[in-house]
């Protein structure tokens, strides 16, 4: 069916009625394209997100921390696969999507272009980055596209562990020696603002937001989600005596929200467009990992071919 006005009206009526759109349903070409872009970008973020944390697996301070971090990084790989599998239902192959990541054609979340300098950064990532991701993904669990929404439900269930392990790391450091506490505060200072940027530009400056909202992919605006994250996090920081690095942070009695200072969108734009601290290193590491895995793919294919050949005479 072409994108006729009638078809689009019927499609939008289904979304307005709260129905989910499933892979074989008719959908406007633009809806399909926007979903492929958004979902693959999300999947790539899960995959690239393993890199800053993988950096610390061998240096985790205790076995307990190491087990937790390994399990978290393994989850991120799984989350990437859930979303790639959802994206494939839109008629695009995973190999093609991975290729777009490796050639730099596709984007991933800019937050992963910042370095993990100390162990406290692992705590800050779990607390802030996964905390922000949960706020965003809880909203996406109600997205109009069924496979995306279902992948989000699965991911949200698992990510609460990520956030809590991060917060526990920060709480432990904050209650430790003065040096440990300084390390925790330094990580908070570096990760707070990039975490707020994760929600994307203000809705009025976000080119894709209006369309995604109209089609029920996004149910809440970037600013609303960002505010929700700030409101949730302030009390958590107070509880472990760490300061969020924003002199303007104060409760706003009129709205009941925490007012926060202006975000440096120039920095955001620089990092999105490839000039963050680690953009090149992250892509190089992904390409290396992909080519290092070539022998595994070859071996599995050879194994399957051998078994197919062995089974063939019996089947004939």
């Amino acid at each position: 069916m072409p994108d006729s006005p009638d078809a689009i009206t019927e499609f939008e009526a289904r979304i307005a009625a709260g129905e989910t759109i499933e892979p074989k349903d008719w959908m406007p070409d633009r809806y399909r394209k926007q979903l492929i872009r958004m979902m693959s970008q999300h999947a790539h973020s899960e995959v690239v997100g393993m890199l800053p944390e993988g950096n610390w697996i061998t240096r985790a301070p205790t076995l307990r921390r190491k087990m937790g971090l390994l399990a978290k990084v393994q989850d991120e790989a799984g989350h990437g696969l859930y979303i790639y599998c959802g994206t494939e239902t839109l008629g695009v192959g995973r190999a093609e999507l991975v290729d777009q990541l490796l050639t730099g054609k596709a984007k991933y979340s800019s937050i992963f272009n910042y370095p993990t300098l100390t162990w406290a950064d692992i705590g800050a990532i779990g607390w802030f980055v996964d905390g922000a991701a949960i706020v965003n993904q809880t909203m996406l669990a109600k997205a109009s596209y069924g496979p995306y929404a279902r992948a989000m439900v699965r991911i949200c269930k698992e990510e609460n562990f990520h956030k809590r392990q991060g917060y526990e790391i920060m709480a432990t450091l904050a209650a430790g020696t003065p040096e440990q506490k300084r390390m925790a505060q330094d990580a908070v200072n570096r990760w707070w603002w990039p975490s707020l940027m994760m929600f994307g530009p203000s809705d009025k400056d976000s080119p894709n937001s209006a369309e995604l909202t109209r089609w029920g992919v996004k149910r809440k605006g970037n600013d609303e989600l960002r505010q929700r994250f700030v409101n949730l996090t302030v009390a958590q920081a107070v509880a472990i005596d760490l300061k969020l690095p924003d002199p303007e942070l104060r409760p706003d009695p009129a709205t009941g929200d925490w007012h926060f200072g202006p975000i440096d969108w120039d920095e955001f734009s620089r990092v999105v467009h490839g000039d963050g601290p680690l953009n090149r290193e992250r892509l190089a590491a992904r390409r290396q990992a992909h080519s290092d895995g070539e022998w595994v793919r070859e071996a599995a294919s050879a194994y399957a071919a051998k078994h197919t050949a062995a089974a063939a005479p019996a089947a004939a």
Partner: protein
Amino acid sequence: MADDGTPAPSDGQWPLWEVFVQPPRGEPFEHAGSVHAVDAESALQNARDVYTRRGEAVNIWVVPTAAITASTPADSGPFFDPGNDKPYRHPQFYSVPRGVRV
């Protein structure tokens, strides 16, 4: 993927398998997602690693995606109609005397 449902790599990536998992306590199998794998055995292992990291399942099925025959959304009206116009299949269709719990 071949027409008879036999997995065969087509575009340089491994064939796709749909994954169904059965939660503990006798619940029915539920679709979890999909995996790429060279054969059924490795599809099972991949499905275990991807979809059951926290004891979510006691059984897994993997099925070549091409082996699934599905209803067509565009025809869902007439296709499901035989069931939709028979209210007498529901208990609420039948009236009972007031005050009696049936």
